[in-house]
């Protein structure tokens, strides 16, 4: 795999939500990179901090209650968190586009979709009114909405779920960003539509040469589209590396357990292997490794010491990072 320039760098990101007497540690030192042109997936179950991370990258966290307590986010070498508001507005929408999960609530119900797409051009000072409209129609056409010239004046509620997601995508790629953050873009959609949307995203990515951060809980989707994956658990990236490597030979017990709990294996008679218990209460994180209470291979050290980030050499030579005391054992399959 050729080493492209790093476009987005997230280093030791920590985000807290303060509520009552407790502080919810939503993100606890997440670290990952996204290189130009690649598709990176953040994989995790609900509450693992993946969407909060995305919101932090886009400076969309409501503060308060949220607070970024540590870490750094760099986009193209510039620090996102400390950059001035005007500077950030030049980047948001223009160089980074974002697609949200729920297109219905993410589109403003009282403005036509054309207006909303055109707004992207307007805020970035591009084109005349007529030109903006023309380009909005063009974009709608590009994302596969038939009759774009009339649909441009329609309102979000007049579109179906899949169409709305197409509108969202059109809006996100309007200014040809170099990075697209897609936060569970297909979760609310039916499988056949999901396939359409993923297909659309792939072709747009190729066309614009965009990098994409795909945030998803769906192992299937991630395994099919992502070049690299970062698996998050309890606010940390527990394992990251090339998708194929990570999913085929997981080095972290959580990744392994996740894979084993998904139905769809060949042997139907086999019982599923759920991960026991529930994800940890983010306000009361366990000491040591956050996964140890649910980990089948947890040992004494796991209850005391948080595992360091270790670099593991993969089969194809690509490296990946893992946070587990026994990463090597897990990867080799020595621990059942």
């Amino acid at each position: 795999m050729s080493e492209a320039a790093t476009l987005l760098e997230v280093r030791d990101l920590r985000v807290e939500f303060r509520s009552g007497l407790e502080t919810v540690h939503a993100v606890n030192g997440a670290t990952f990179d996204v290189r130009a042109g690649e598709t990176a997936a953040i994989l995790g179950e609900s509450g693992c901090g993946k969407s909060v991370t995305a919101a932090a990258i886009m400076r969309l966290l409501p503060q308060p209650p949220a607070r970024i307590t540590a870490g750094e986010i760099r986009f193209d070498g510039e620090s996102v968190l400390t950059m001035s508001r005007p500077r950030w507005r030049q980047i948001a929408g223009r160089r980074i586009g974002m697609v949200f999960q729920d297109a219905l609530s993410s589109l403003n119900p009282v403005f036509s979709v054309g207006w909303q797409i055109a707004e992207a051009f307007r805020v970035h000072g591009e084109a005349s009114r007529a030109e903006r409209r023309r380009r909005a129609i063009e974009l709608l056409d590009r994302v596969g909405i038939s009759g774009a010239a009339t649909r441009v004046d329609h309102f979000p509620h007049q579109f179906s779920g899949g169409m709305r997601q197409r509108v969202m995508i059109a809006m996100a790629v309007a200014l040809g960003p170099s990075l697209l953050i897609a936060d569970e873009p297909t979760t609310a959609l039916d499988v056949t539509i999901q396939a359409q949307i993923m297909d659309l995203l792939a072709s747009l990515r190729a066309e614009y040469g965009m990098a994409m951060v795909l945030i998803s809980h769906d192992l299937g989707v991630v395994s099919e589209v992502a070049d690299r994956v970062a698996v998050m658990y309890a606010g940390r990236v527990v394992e990251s590396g090339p998708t194929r490597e990570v999913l085929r030979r997981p080095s972290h017990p959580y990744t392994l357990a996740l894979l084993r709990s998904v139905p769809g294996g060949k042997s139907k008679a086999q019982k599923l292997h759920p991960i026991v218990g529930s994800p940890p209460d983010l306000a009361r994180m366990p000491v040591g490794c956050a996964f140890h209470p649910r980990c089948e291979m947890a040992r004494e050290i796991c209850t005391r010491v948080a595992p360091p980030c270790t670099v593991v050499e993969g089969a194809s030579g690509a490296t990946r990072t893992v946070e587990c005391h026994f990463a090597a054992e897990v990867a080799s399959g020595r621990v059942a």
Partner: protein
Amino acid sequence: MMRYLGQRALHSAIALGALVMLVFFLVRLTGDPASLYLPIDASVEQRQAFSERHGFDRPVLAQFASFVGDVLRGDFGHSIRKDRPALEVVLEAFPTTLSLAVGTMVIAVVLGVVVGSLAAIRPGGMFDRMSTLTSLGAASAPDFWVAITGILLFAVALGWLPTSGTGGWQYWILPLAVLSLRPFGLLVQVVRGSMLSALGSAYVKTARAKGVGEATVVFVHALRNSGLAVVTVAGDQMVGIVNGAVIVETVFGWPGVGKLMIDAVIQRDFTLVQATILVTATAIFVLNVVIDLLYVLLDPRIRHR
């Protein structure tokens, strides 16, 4: 949409009919107009003659029948007190109340929206706390008390404004201020609440992610979506303003419908009571239609329902 409006019209007509019927019989239970109209020493014969002249001696149902017939012909009867056609009297007073109400609404909505929006930007901030306190106070102050205190303070003690009456713009300040207090207070609360939820919504996130500036986010994206709540509350308050108008018109000597109606009830001027109620209720019906249309204007989702 048309069907909806048609339905609303039908409902309003039924409501109007029921209301008029209710009022017609209720006011006739409130006592004999003769005892109030005629001098205290008037004899029984004089009273009887008075009742006969005005038809109050007839059975109530017969009175109602001829009232309905008259109204359908456009005749709202003759006000005994004013010795003029009741409708004429009401229509004369109507513009005053209407202009008061509209003025009040404009002030309350503009101020309410601005203050409420600003408060929602930094919930819990200094401005938010101050505006919350102010709006609560505004919504909680007895209006007649504010009116009189206002006159004593601003007109008498400070001499900045005329005490009362109608005339140039100075005459509008105190009545409008008094009348808009409550709707203003409520609107601030409502706008703040709906702005808060709008600002927390996903579409605002989308706008921010597009790089839309904060001012546009607040005053275009969020505010437009709070419009429905504003219209609903403002519409409700419009009816309430007639309540306030009674007080304000009484204190400031404004010749409006509110005072007219109260006086008519106190004087048992039945025809005038009926006419004012019919006119007011019709106006409220029209107002409701306007609100419905505003809904449609503000929310495309309703347009396509």
